[in-house]
């Protein structure tokens, strides 16, 4: 297991490097110039100094190395500094956004709590809904509940999030007026009534994000439970007189969760991509919205860093899914 883990990590590093290089050199083709908005009256040598201050002016491969150093060394040092009050990273150039000349990671740190709240809540909600649906529709295969469930999950992942988002806004905000359409991220929770306001504004984005994940997960859960229901150990459990509830909820459930847990790990990047769209619909100022505005403003350092964070997320969750599978299921041995 250890050698397998090490091998996987050893493979993940070049993968990430190649992806970083691909994104970087793709963005090199971009026409945007951070000095374009500087007035023409500014002398060219001052412009040159401004370029240097942004870390430009070197040839592309050098700047790529610089970016790697900034991402993997200087930014973590800054985190250490912020946590312990040390000054390791002093004087080092951080990754600077072209939009507002502020360090990219400061803005990401500002935005990420909103995204994590919405994404995390919807994932928990999705798992809590999908599990019982999956178990029950497998247990009563071809029943009315199963048929309805299969249809609803099919609809759930066929309807794209940008339409389900619009639909719930029309129904719950425009027609019924129950929930706000815009997510107010400056809202501070300090008592029960403000907590209730927070819950109300989170319901719609969470609902949209959870719908897709729920449909996928409950299909997996159903298939997994169906596989297990025909196993010999289930017959044994029943034969020795266990109550049905115990057979299903202890014996079958535990075994069916094995593949589903890995699927849950695998879908983490998908839900973050979904968040890009949901944040756009509900005006949540999370990292998805940060990416879109950076793209529209030709802010390439920001785009580069955010895309790379998405890639890290994908590689890491794939790694976790594979390792979890090996850890949880003793029948699977990688070595």
């Amino acid at each position, binding site marked *: 297991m250890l050698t397998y883990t090490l091998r996987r990590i050893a493979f993940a590093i070049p993968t990430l490097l190649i992806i970083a290089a691909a994104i970087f050199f793709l963005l090199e083709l971009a026409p945007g110039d951070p000095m374009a908005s500087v007035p023409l009256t500014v002398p060219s040598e001052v412009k040159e100094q401004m370029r240097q201050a942004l870390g430009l002016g070197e040839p592309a491969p050098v700047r790529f190395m610089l970016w790697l150093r900034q991402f993997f060394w200087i930014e973590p040092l800054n985190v250490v500094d912020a946590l312990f009050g040390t000054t390791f990273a002093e004087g080092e150039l951080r990754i600077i956004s072209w939009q507002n000349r502020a360090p990219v990671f400061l803005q990401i740190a500002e935005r990420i709590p909103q995204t994590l709240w919405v994404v995390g809540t919807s994932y928990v909600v999705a798992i809590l809904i999908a599990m019982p649906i999956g178990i029950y529709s497998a247990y009563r295969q071809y029943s009315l509940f199963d048929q309805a469930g299969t249809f609803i999950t099919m609809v759930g992942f066929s309807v*794209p999030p*940008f*339409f389900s988002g619009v639909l719930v806004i029309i129904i719950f905000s425009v027609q019924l007026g129950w929930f706000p359409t815009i997510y107010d991220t400056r809202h501070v929770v300090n008592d029960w009534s403000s907590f209730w306001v927070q819950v109300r504004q989170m319901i719609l984005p969470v609902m949209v994000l959870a719908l897709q994940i729920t449909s996928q997960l409950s299909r997996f859960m159903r298939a997994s439970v169906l596989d297990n229901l025909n196993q010999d150990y289930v017959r044994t459990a029943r034969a020795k007189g266990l109550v049905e509830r115990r057979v299903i909820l202890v014996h079958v459930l535990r075994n069916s969760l094995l593949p589903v847990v890995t699927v849950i790990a695998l879908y983490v990047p998908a839900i973050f991509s979904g968040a890009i769209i949901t944040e756009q619909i509900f005006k949540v100022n999370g990292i998805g919205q940060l990416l879109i505005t950076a793209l529209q403003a030709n802010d390439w350092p920001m785009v580069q860093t955010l895309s790379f964070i998405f890639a890290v997320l994908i590689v890491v969750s794939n790694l976790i899914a594979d390792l979890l599978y090996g850890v949880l299921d003793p029948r699977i041995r990688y070595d």
Partner: protein
Amino acid sequence: MTERSATEPVTPVGTDAQVVVASHEPGPEAMAVPVDPGARSQWRDVWDQFRTHKGALIGAAVFAGICLVVLLGPYLWDLDPTKTDIRNKNQGSTFAHPMGTDQLGRDIFARMMMGGRISLAVGLTAMGLSILLGTLVGVLAGYFKRLDGLLMRLTDLFLALPILPLLLVLVVLFREPLAAAFGSQEVGIFVLMVTAIGITSWMQTARIVRGDVLALKEREFVLAARSIGTPARRIISRHMLPNVLSPIMVSATLGIATAIITESTLSFLGLGFPPDFPTWGRLLNDGVAYLQLYPMRAVWPGLAISAVVLSINYVGDGLRDALDPRIRGR
């Protein structure tokens, strides 16, 4: 040279399959039609199994219906989708305008059909490209051991790419240059969309095809073909491709749905087709601005996208069952 091998593969595919291979572009319902109605061919069996799946049948009908309306509709409904009629702006559903008119008085029904043509064209072409790439990589990796490691690492690499951010970057970067290169904005963005979606969605097909080719390569009929001196490319085209056709067809069907969703997502985020060039995603995006007053304007394109994707997913489900010989006999 005799190509017919003595041992039959698991899914025996006769000569009629070649016809289908040559034209695997059209919609899935066209593929399931038996080529030779007289004999009890494999495609007849597939069709019989497909018919028992009610959802798939309804899905195929809905998809065919939408395709027909979108293709033939503009000839019957000859309102110009770009003609503005400011006096009749923001109308609800009437006989003159079944889906109403937008803020410039343009007929939404005509715009929907126009948008559907583009959305479906993008979906079908992008799927074609992605299937082509996926099959190519999959067959090469599965058949030639020397290429296997390299190509599969490449596939893993592509699977680790952050697709949505990358697509957004591609569109932002290449929209202008490609529009200039092709002389018109529409053609440029169409080519860009199709290539971008195609080269970021072939990986699953490649993996499935590789797995199947690896298994097929060990079978006796391939050994027989090789022992009589059949060259590799002919083994691939006569023995491999017809036998991996089923998984390819299923992923092609589902690929249309993903491509349409991706295109609409980009257009919805304002990074797809230009505003005066309606696709369903773009129309939905335009409708969102008027959500409070005229919610139906966002609902129509959304419904169209969802209906197409849902029907395609059902067809894919039915096709998967119909093409699986282990299920078919039951």
